[in-house]
């Protein structure tokens, strides 16, 4: 079963993303929402960690949350796909269940 993992906290604030990556199985996906989008930005100390994880997991990022925080698609790491809320819904349908890392 493939899981859609949602992460809503910044990796600088909490260990939610780290725990998610520890337990997310290959072939699952991670959707970064709310403050979680900071993990998607290029040029941070988490970039390498996320880049490594991308070899096993598909990464998505909620565009409205990126925009709200003053960033744009050009700030987001290559390979992380931006989605809107409709895309978020589609992901929850595509994957067999959703696990929230709060």
């Amino acid at each position, binding site marked *: 079963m493939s899981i859609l993992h949602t992460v*809503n906290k910044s990796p600088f604030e909490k260990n939610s993303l780290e725990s998610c990556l520890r337990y997310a199985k290959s072939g699952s996906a991670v959707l970064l929402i709310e*403050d979680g989008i900071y993990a998607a930005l290029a040029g941070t100390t988490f970039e390498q960690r996320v880049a490594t994880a991308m070899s096993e997991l598909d990464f998505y990022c909620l565009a409205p949350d990126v925009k709200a925080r003053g960033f744009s698609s050009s700030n987001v790491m290559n390979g992380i796909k931006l989605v809107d809320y409709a895309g978020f*819904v589609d992901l*929850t349908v595509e994957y067999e*269940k959703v696990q*929230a890392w709060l």
Partner: protein
Amino acid sequence: MKFIIQVNEGPYQHQTADSAYQFTRAALARGHEVLRVFFYHDGVNNGTRLTSPPQDDRNIVSRWSALAAEHELDLVICVAAAHRRGILDESEMKRLDKDAYNLAPGFRISGLGQLIEGVVLADRLVVFGD
């Protein structure tokens, strides 16, 4: 698909209620069924009709009420969590001998069994929290 949404935080303090609302609206717009939105922990505070947020910002409580009215959405406030935090409907007010009730339109108060039932009937549980 049938969805059940769980909201674990109150309005404004966290982005939780906003994210849950936008997701719920998008799911309905996509033609999916949202069986229930279940409010737990501080999430029950989404159900008080006594909020008066500034006019130039979103009114989280009333937009839940409006969404419920528009789509016949079942918004359920967990009774145990509500008792701890002071969210009451008229019947709970009488039963608990309080002098006021504050449940917002479109919400109803019920037990955790409604979340479990929703999870059994739905295809997807999506949890929003902090």
